[in-house]
C-alpha cells in the first residue's frame, strides 16, 4: 500500500503538476521564465560553482539517459569487472563534480550578502532537494558497486512502466532505502519545475544555433508577430 502510493501514484502527481504547471506559467506568467542569473552581482565563485555543477549534471543526466534508452547494453557492458569499474568510476567522478559545484553554489548563496538579497525561499527548497538528489546518487556510487546495473535492470524498466501507465512497483520496492530516496526525490524535483527557477532548462535557447544574427519585428507587415495586420494604402 505504502509502496503503491509512493511508486505508483506519487510519480503521476508530480508529472501532471509539472506539465500543467509549466504550461500555465508559460502562458500566463512568461516574464517569470528566466535563469535569474546572479553573475552580475558575483562572478568568481559562480564560475567554480556553476560550471562544475552544470557540466557535471549534464554528464550525469546524459549517462542516465543513455541507460534509459538502451539498458541492455549497460548490463552487457557491466558483465566484465574492469568495465564495471570504469562505468562506476566515471559516474562517481561526474557525481563528485556535480556535488562539488552544488555545494559551492549553496555556500555562495548563503555567504554573499548580495546574493542573499536575490534569494527566494523556493531557491533554498530547490537547493535542498538537489543536494539530496546528488548526495544519494554519490552515496549509491560509493557504497553499492552494482548501482549502474541496478539502474539498468530495475529502475529503467520501472521508469518505462511508469511512462506506459502500468507502473510495476515490484521492480523497485526491494532496492535499498537510499535508492528509494533517489528515485522519489527525482520525482519531487520534477514536481518543483514550475515553482522554481528550474523552468530555465525548459527554455534553453536551442534555436539560436540556426537563427540569423539579426532579428527584426514589424508593426506594419503581415508576418509580424505584433498586433497583426495594419494599414493598406
Amino acid at each position, binding site marked *: 500500500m505504502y509502496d503503491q502510493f509512493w511508486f505508483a501514484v506519487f510519480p503521476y502527481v508530480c508529472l501532471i503538476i509539472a506539465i500543467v504547471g509549466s504550461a500555465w506559467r508559460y502562458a500566463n506568467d512568461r*516574464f517569470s521564465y528566466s535563469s535569474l542569473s546572479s553573475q552580475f552581482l558575483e562572478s568568481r565563485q559562480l564560475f567554480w560553482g556553476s560550471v562544475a555543477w552544470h557540466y557535471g549534471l549534464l554528464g550525469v543526466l546524459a549517462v542516465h539517459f543513455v541507460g534509459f534508452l538502451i539498458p541492455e547494453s549497460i548490463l552487457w557492458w557491466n558483465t566484465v569487472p574492469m568495465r564495471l569499474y570504469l562505468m562506476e568510476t566515471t559516474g562517481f567522478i561526474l557525481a563528485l563534480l556535480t556535488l562539488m559545484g552544488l555545494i559551492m553554489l549553496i555556500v555562495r548563496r548563503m555567504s554573499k550578502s548580495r546574493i542573499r538579497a536575490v534569494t527566494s525561499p523556493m531557491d533554498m527548497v530547490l537547493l535542498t532537494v538537489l543536494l539530496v538528489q546528488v548526495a544519494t546518487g554519490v552515496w549509491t556510487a560509493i557504497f553499492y558497486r552494482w548501482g549502474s546495473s541496478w539502474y539498468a535492470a530495475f529502475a529503467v524498466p520501472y521508469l518505462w512502466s511508469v511512462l506506459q501507465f502500468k507502473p510495476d512497483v515490484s521492480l523497485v520496492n526491494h532496492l535499498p532505502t537510499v535508492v528509494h530516496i533517489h528515485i522519489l526525490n527525482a520525482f519531487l524535483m520534477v514536481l518543483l519545475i514550475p515553482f522554481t527557477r528550474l*523552468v530555465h532548462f525548459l527554455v534553453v535557447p536551442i534555436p539560436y544555433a540556426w537563427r540569423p544574427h539579426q532579428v527584426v519585428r514589424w508593426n506594419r*507587415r503581415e508576418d509580424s508577430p505584433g*498586433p497583426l495586420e495594419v494599414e493598406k494604402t
Partner: protein
Amino acid sequence: MDVRAQISMMFHLDKCIGCHTCSVACKNIWTDREGTEYMWWNNVETKPGTGYPTKWEDQEKYKGGWQPKGKTIKLKVADKASTFANIFHQPHLPTIDDYYEPWTYKYSDLFDAKAGDDQPTARPVSLITGKNIDINAGPNWDDDLSGSSVYAKNDPNLTEDEKQALFEIERLTMFYLPRICNHCLNPACVASCPSGALYKRGDDGIVLLDQNTCRAWRFCISGCPYKKTYYNWKTGKSEKCILCFPRLETGQAPACFHSCVGRIRYLGVLLYDADKIEATASAPENELVELQREMILDPHDPEVIAGAEKSGVHFSMVEAAQKSPVYKFVKKWKLALPLHPEFRTLPMLFYIPPLLPVLGRMEDGVYNVDSDEYFTSLDKARLPMRYMASLFTAGNEEQVRLVLEKLLTVRTYKRAEEVGDMDSDKLKAMFEKTGLTPELCEEIYRLTSLPTFEDRFVIPPMHREYVAELTMDDPYTFKAEIGFGGFKGRIERGT
C-alpha cells in the same frame, strides 16, 4: 535596394554643457525601480575620461562589438558554439563593481540619533543588501575630472605620449559626451542574444528588448560595445534605452531630448538601404564612416521613394526624412560622425565633434589672438586630432579634420559677416578646401544656432491608430499592453 526607415539622433557636442539634465529626466521616467538604480540609459561622460561603466571603450576587457573574420565579421564576445559552452558562466560579463553599487542614505538617523556631542550623519547604505557601504564609484564619478591622473589617464583612446602631453597645464581641456543606445543597424546585442529577445523594429529602427523572451543568458551585456544594455539584478532581465518609443508614438520627444538644456540634440528620420548592412559592417576600418554614409539614402530620389513604398515604409516617414535635420548634418553637410564606428555595429546616433578652444601652447608662452589667426590652427587643438579620430572615425584623422575645418569655416564666415575682421582671401581658401559656400554656411549656422524645437524634432506619428482600428472590434483590446506584440501579465521576478 531594401529601403528602411531609422529614427536617428544627432548631438552637437560644442553645445553640450554637461549638466546631466538628460540623464536625470531619463532616470525619473524609466529607471527609478529596484534593480535599475545603477542603469543610466542616458549618461553624460567627461572626455578624456574613463566613462561609464569604467573603461567601456576597452574591448580587450569587455569584448563588445564585432571583429573582422576573413571577409566578414564575427561577434567578439562569442561565436554560436562558445555561446552555448559559456552559458553557465559568461566569462566577459561586467559585474556591478564595474558600474557602482547603488546606494541611499539612512536619513532616519538624522532624526532618531541620540543626543550627543556630534552632529548625526546619514550613512550611505547599499540599495542591494541594505548594509552600510563606503561609496567609491558612481555614475558620473569622473565628471569634470579630465585633468585627473586617476581618471582621464585611463581613457582607452589616449596613447602614452598623448597622456603625458595632455596634462601639461596649458593643454588641459575636456568636453562632454552624452550617450544613449545607438539603435545600431548591425546591433551586437541583438546578434548575441541566444533567446532572440532583442530585436530591431523594422518600422522605425528602434532596438528593443522583449522582457517576456529574455531569459538572463546575459550575452547582450557583453555584446553591446557601448555597454547600453543593462542587467536588472532584481527581475533577472536585461533592459535598455527604448528611445522613449511610447512618447515618440504619441508625438512627444524623448525625455533626454526634451529636457536638453543646451538644445544639442536633433531627432530625425534617415532612410537606409538594408541590403548593404553586412557589406558595410565588414568593410576596412578607414572606410567605415564613408560607407555607412553611403547606406543612407537621398529621400528626394524618386527611386528611393518608390523603394520605400515597396518595402512598406509609411509615406509620412519619407516626408519626415525629407525634412530631417539629421540627414542634413550627417549626409548633406557631412558634419556628424558615428561614435566608435570600429565596433562595426553601424551606430545610428551621430555626433558633431567639438571644436573646443583651438588655442594651443605657443613657443614663448603667449597666446596669439591676432585677428588674422583668430581661430588659430587645428594643429594647435588642445586635444590631438588622433584622439578625436579614435572616437569618431575609427582612426581616420582626415575625416575628422575635414569636419572640424568645416566648423571653422562656418565660424570664420560668420565672424567676417558680423565683425568684418577676417581675411577674405583666407576665407575663400577655406571655402575651396571644405567645399562650403556662403549659402551652406548660413544654412549650417541657422540649424546649429537658431533652430526651433520643430526644426530639431521631425518625427512623424507612428500610426498606432490604424493598427488599433484595423485589428480589433474592441478598442480596449490593447489596454494595459506595452509596445509591439503587447506586454501582458505580471512584471515580477520569478521564483
